[in-house]
């Protein structure tokens, strides 16, 4: 299981949990697992998010993730 840290205003979709456990080995499985467990997150995730693994923004859905990784969901990062 991977512990996924959410931003706190998402807790209204996760029964109050700021950290949720998802069975996943890739970023895609993290995102799909979040939507399956908490369907209210679907529009947020479909709107675009960044998955940060051990401080580095994951490059894509196939990026591997493991239980020992620290995983954060963040708003989609962009720049000027």
């Amino acid at each position, binding site marked *: 299981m991977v512990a996924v*840290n959410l*931003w*706190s*205003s998402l807790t*209204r979709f996760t029964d109050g949990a700021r950290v949720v456990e998802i069975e996943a080995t890739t970023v895609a499985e993290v995102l799909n697992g979040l939507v399956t467990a908490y369907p*209210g997150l679907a*529009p*947020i995730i479909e*709107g675009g998010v960044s998955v*940060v693994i*051990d*401080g*580095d*923004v*994951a*490059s*894509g859905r196939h*990026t591997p993730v493991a239980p020992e990784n*620290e995983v*954060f969901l*963040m*708003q989609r*990062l*962009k*720049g*000027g």
Partner: protein
Amino acid sequence: MPKDELKELHLVGTRPDRPDGLDKVTGRARYGADISAPGMLWAAVVRSPHAHARILKIDSTKAEALDGVKAVVTRADFPTGLTGEDWNLQENTMAGEVALYDGHAVAAVAATSALIAQEAARLIEVDYEVLPHVTDVDDAIKPDAPAIRPGAADASVPEGMPPNVVRYIEFGHGDVAAGFDDADLVMEKSYKTEATHQGYIEPHACLGQLGEDGRGEMWVCTQGHWFIRRMCTAVLGIEAAQLRVTPSEIGGGFGGKTTIFMEPLSLALSRKAGGRPVKLVMSRSEVLRATGPTASASMDVKIGMKKDGSITAGRAEFRMQGGAFPDAPVDMALYCAFAGYKMPAVEHIGYDVLANRPKCAAYRAPGSPMGAFAVESLVDEMSRDLGLDPIDVRLKNAVVEGDRASYGPKFGSIGLVECLEAAKAHPNLQAPLGPNQGRGVACGYWFNHGGETSVSMAISEDGTAQVSIGTPDIGGLRASIALMTAETLGIPYEDVRVNVVETGALGVNEPTHGSRATFASGLGAVEAARQAIGEMCKRAANEWGIDAEAVEWVDGAAQPAGPNAGKFPPMTIAEIAGKMGSTGGPISGHHESVPEGVGASFGTHVVDVEVDPETGRTTILRYLVVQDAGRAIHPSYVEGQYQGGAAQGIGWALNEEYVYGEDGRLQNPIFLDYRVPVASDLPMIDTVIVEVPNPGHPYGVRGVGETGITPPLPAIANAIHAATGARMRHLPMTPAKVLAALKA
């Protein structure tokens, strides 16, 4: 890359001539408006004079009767059924039922000359029903504010929020209340920043051609031509591959040219005019009224601090308007606000609010300057109240590698402490200050970005190399790519030509944004060069009859890797390239990726100002930028980025703002009234390049383009306070505002 390995570099870190310098000083460089084509038409746009108005009727009869007019388009000429950001882009390109801001396009015309097109635009009659409007963020968030786009809020907004709140975010960690209880000093203040424009010298310009078969071409001034392609084709309902987009030379972007504003209009007009190419060039007034400025912000910040300067807790609540469309960078502002500090407990709350203003676009570290203005001002105020040195307070709380960022994840390699120490040691801090003079310090942060990247490199028959990149060169990219490619290949800088190529020549590239181009396209060029080196080693091995693994690449030549590999004289890149047609064909390298390992960049600015007590005018006496570049590939360009960022931040701090009248119309849509700093306003800006190499890049590169605009806002406010005792919490700090504060 370890530091001692960096010392062995021959070209990276040098300052060769700029490859585009001669073209630019002789006028040979071709910018957006310089492109023309046979049979070309000129376009003009009809824009709403109202901040908020229902469009009742558009009558183009008189315009179409004018000799030379070839096409008129309105929203009726665009496909329906778009959703999400595609709909936002289409709606901003051409208003549908309602004009949402002063300057919003409602119709466009193409004619055989620019004058005829402008006259035809004047002949298009639009009937409006004027609606209530709101332009100020604090007014727009009120529950009884005019609802601009009911139903536009996304799923992040809880029920019961005011009607113009379209996104909502909360994040943080730790026990904030306990942190404030633990502090010796707790202060809470409110701050405001006004919308500013990127202020690029070159207005938006394009030449579009689209036939009835759905195939088209576009030449355009842009930071990212694949974005232009995706957005234009989405807005017009055509297939992406059928539109070929070629970027022109670019006269500045700063984030404002990462999106579309009027480009689809030239294509729509062309399609309606039988496929004739249509040129569309914005005036400065159109640029200011209808292209993305940054957001304006209203911010509350609370900080708890111990007597020794340790921060115990922080709270930030930001409200931002980004025009009549979602996406004000309130999230990024909050992520960056406390980023430089170890925060035992912190809470962030953000509201993205609609207002009757143009759709905001990215502007250099979008959001970060506003957040820094609020937090860095308050940290300075508290440091002074506690009798502490503002640099020492920042050093005491500064994040280092492995620390948890205020926004959650842990930092990798970063150089904030190195920046603060370099600033502290700089001679500018010893310069004596006279009457009415003061010194201010502030730090800034930007994440930087990887992004979709595709690079191709080909070896020529004479052993020179050409690199094809898809990220337009705004601030020295071609020089930096040439240096990294030449360094990797072991050939002279002058032997590499870097071309920014059109959308048909490479895979998808994100724009030159997010301070990513030198990092990501540079990484791609290095990997492409390494791929070519592998092939050249193989060709040499075949000639020598040894295994390719027994060949190494040294100083631009293949050579046996050791005494056991055989005795052969080195085979140079020119010798290998000269025979490539008979040894296996062209030699090239390619790289496609979304690179990870992006290196974040911190910076520290120190400014000395003098405030005229009679007029309130602030003069910048000295300005120092210290920033972590990871590794400066071409230091002159890096220094230029530092100076440019500081200059824009100085303008934001002292002069620049969008001024709206009671009628919701922009009052200052020309550069005479929207005042950007000019050379005579500024001293020579001193720079120090700190180099804490980014382990995620082969040459240690961090992006440097954005961080520099972040600290000037608070640094100057802090300096004005030091000079006068007046604490300015609302930008810009114009002479009138400063004078009022002095008299208060």
